């Protein structure tokens, strides 16, 4: 058993890679390639993670209990290869929520300082 930081605040702020992986897993379990595709889509290709960065982040997130392995099975939409799937833990979900709230508060500050263009001035409450 690894020593785990159970207080969500101790994990903040998250690195872009960790935040995007957590966000990719927010709506259900995914395998490595699925996470990579989702992150690319969510960030419009701005965050491109290679296998080393992705699995390095996954390893550290497993160590601190932000995610967990679910099981290993084939992806019916891809090929017949068995793939290892990952999902959020309760701690990971709390950390994701707190980080998102932190980012939203930063955006609010940016908006109050009129940093954002009108395109981004929607309601964030």
């Amino acid at each position, binding site marked *: 058993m690894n020593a785990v930081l159970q207080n969500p605040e101790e994990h903040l702020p998250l690195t872009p890679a960790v935040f995007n992986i957590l966000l990719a897993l927010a709506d259900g379990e995914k395998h*490595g*390639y699925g996470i*990579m595709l989702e992150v690319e889509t969510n960030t419009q290709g701005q965050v491109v993670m*290679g296998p080393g*960065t992705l*699995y*390095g982040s996954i*390893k550290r997130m497993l160590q601190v209990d932000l995610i967990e392995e679910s099981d290993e099975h084939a992806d019916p939409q891809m090929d017949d290869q068995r793939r290892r799937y990952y999902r959020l833990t309760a701690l990971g979900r709390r950390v994701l929520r707190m980080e998102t709230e932190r980012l939203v508060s930063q955006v609010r500050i940016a908006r109050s300082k009129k940093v954002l263009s009108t395109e981004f001035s929607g309601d964030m409450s």
Partner: protein
Amino acid sequence: MKDDPSEIPVIALSVRLYQALLIVYPARFHEDYGSQMLQLFGDCCLRAFRQDGINGMIKLWVVTILDLVRSAIAEHLHKETVMTKPKFIRFSVWAMMVGVTAYLPWFILAMLAGTRFDPDVNGWWYILNTLGVFGVVYGCILLPLGMLGLRERYGSQVGVLGRGILMAGALGGAGLGILFFYQMKFSLGDDIYRYYVITLTGLTLPFVSLLLFGMLTLRYKPLSRGNGLPLTAGLIAPMFIKLYGLLAGIRYFVEDPFFIFLSILGFIVMSVALIQFGYISQADEARLTGAM
């Protein structure tokens, strides 16, 4: 998406090459994630080849090489820091216990060699010099290392003050050890009093910080048991070492048998307390990480 990557030569070759390159990662990481990374790279190859042919493969390789270099460095650095923290604690506390055990015979012999009961003081020199190496290694390396281990283990429980005290003891011990070597090399013959002061102050500083740390362990009780042990170890050593240093500086040899006996007894008590303290720290750490 039902293509088999192994049927497309450029992809099959790329996957084999990537598999060979995975050796740059630490063995444990390679073992745990190598097959998944290879599978993921195969998927990326298939997508890149479908979207942009050979050009897509070239772009993918550029991105992959950069990722490989960056993540391999990160994994090796991570392996040396975060992953080995429990190991570092266990190793450093063991080092401290071994160090104090090795230092004890030298201290006892050094004390006896200075007495008038010794039939031939010069006869001790070979043994003393040999065992003295343990003393120097203990004072300069093993004890400061042990204090860094204690700082890692109990740092969060004894607060900023406790962490600062242990760090000061470790840095002070190591720093004065360096001064000791400097003194040995350049001016031992000129001023033996300075030699004593530097050596004994170097040995005393970690114990003074252990003494202060011991006060904090009595207050916060971070150990599962034996919270008075650091104070016991810390209290006795500065008292005797410093006293001996001052007397030795004045007279070179302390000949009072009572003082000799008291010093040896004190040092044995200090060593036993330190070893027992180290043993409890090891057990606490093993209980926390689930491994011994």
